[in-house]
């Protein structure tokens, strides 16, 4: 269980996140949405501990993360960074093994448990056949699965993802998110992810948190948050929302497009 309470983050005198309180249960996916600059990435970084919070707490299973060392924290919470071109000539296996840093000794010698965790992560992300390949040779979608596998190898109860589908095409977006969905349910992971595409959000998320200017505007199910008046106001763009004919999930259209097609 991931609990964020009254979290406040400032860069100098400028407050970028104020009074954020959220909760994610095991097996649940929380999507962070909001216009550019709303603070989604900052929230992910603050929860992961890379950006210090001014006040407030991040608690995982009753443990306040601010009391943990960098190494202890990496055993509780793993981060999948934004998709980007990965350089270097490490093999997939080596890269995923680096996710075990928090369990390794200083020398980086791998134990049998480390290898088991790496094998499991490669299997979960369907990367076994790529294990010996160099990460630089993989496609964008495959590289993103490597970063996911690296985070899974950390064997944490909480998984954070920062816009993991940026730069990926539709097929890879869907594959990656379906994989995260499956892992959340099977491994009982508490997942929090920043996502841009609102239709992907309603396809994958159990809960949605809408951030605007560093404040939490709405927090609820996709049906509760992804509503025409809420989104239109937050994004300052008129939108229309229809329900998916089978699942009932909200589907969003910018209004201009609808008018134009008539």
């Amino acid at each position, binding site marked *: 269980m991931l609990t964020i309470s009254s979290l406040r983050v400032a860069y100098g005198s400028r407050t970028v996140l104020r009074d954020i309180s959220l909760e994610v249960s095991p097996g649940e996916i929380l999507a962070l949405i909001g216009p550019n600059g709303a603070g989604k990435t900052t929230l992910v970084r603050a929860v992961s501990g890379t950006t210090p919070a001014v006040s407030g707490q991040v608690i995982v299973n009753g443990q306040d993360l601010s009391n943990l060392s960098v190494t202890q924290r990496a055993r509780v919470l793993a*981060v999948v*960074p934004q998709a980007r071109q990965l350089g270097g000539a490490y093999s997939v296996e080596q890269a995923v093994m680096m996710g075990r840093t928090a369990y390794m000794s200083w020398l980086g010698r791998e134990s049998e448990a480390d290898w088991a965790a790496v094998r499991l992560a490669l299997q979960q992300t369907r990367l076994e056949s790529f294990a010996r390949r160099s990460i630089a040779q993989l496609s964008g979608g495959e590289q993103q699965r490597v970063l996911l596998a690296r985070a899974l190898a950390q064997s944490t109860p909480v998984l954070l993802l920062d816009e993991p589908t940026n730069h990926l095409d539709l097929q890879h977006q869907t594959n990656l998110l379906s994989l995260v969905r499956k892992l959340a349910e099977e491994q009982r992971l508490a997942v929090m992810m920043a996502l841009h595409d609102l239709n992907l959000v309603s396809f994958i998320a159990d809960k949605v948190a809408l951030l605007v200017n560093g404040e939490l505007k709405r927090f609820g199910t996709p049906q509760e948050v992804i509503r025409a008046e809420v989104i239109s106001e937050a994004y300052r763009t008129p939108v229309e929302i229809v329900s998916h004919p089978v699942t009932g999930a909200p589907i969003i259209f910018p209004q201009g497009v609808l008018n134009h097609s008539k």
Partner: protein
Amino acid sequence: MFRKRPYLLTALLLLIALLLSIALGAVFIPPGTILRILADLIPGVALDPDWPESFSAIILSVRLPHTVLIALTGAALASSGAAYQGLFRNPLADPYLIGVAAGAGLGAVIAMSLNWPTNLFGFYLIPVGAFIGAVATVLLVYNLARVNGLVPLTTLILAGVAVGAFASAVTSSLMLRTDLQIHRAISFLLGGSPMTGWDPVLAALPYMLIGMGLLSLSGHMLNVLQFGEEEAKQMGLAVDRAKVFVIVTASLTTAVAVAFSGVIGFVGLIVPHIIRLLWGPDYRRLIPLSILGGSTMLLLADMLARILLAPSTLPVGIVTAMAGAPFFLWILRRAKKEVFW
């Protein structure tokens, strides 16, 4: 078969280079004889000496200390080069190019001018001065070159050149003083020729063993750092501690090399690069292999330096610069495509 056994290959090459380095000189001493002379030193082994007495003297008091110092220097420069490359996430970091060698040189010159080594204790003090100079330089260059948490190629080289040039200028300006000791120190430093005799070897040895030993342990940290500091932290690496560890050990190792062998460039660039091409980027083996490969490479350069203009000897720093500069340009052209390692 050697491709699969990097340690075996590099160790064998080093062994050959060591023997050759002892064998070559004004008189050629056959490797077989060298091994017998060395074996004779082992307590309990008494061989029938079938070699001229002068051979033992040449080997034990001239060639052996020289060879050991060259090997240690090459190992130190290559392993610290590899470590700086990992730390800066940039394949062109080299103790010479990023100005650390010049900074260490300045420190060493100041130390020597304060107290020219006349006994072993004096020799132990030089690396201390060089170490202070090296750490100060690396911190300055690192902070000057850093842009948004990255150390790009252009700013790294520019900051390194600028700070290195400044340190060299300060060193040269010390020449204006009429102090004889400073003159000796500077001509040694810029000459790029190692000191002679056992004293510098004995003084270098403890620092080198500590420095290179600790560098060999930093492989995993450097691997994780390749993903950037933020991700390294998220993976559980205590990033700040790791950075201090690498800076201190790499600077110590560089400083000792500079203190006793003068400024010798490009070894720290070429050796890790070749090893990366052959055996990949895993720093856990890149650093130990650079130690083995670096000593071999500098021994070869040193033999060239002794042979090319025989009977006079070229400073080994000139040989490495002549071979290294074209190599550097070649990497630079390749690196254009992939500026960040």
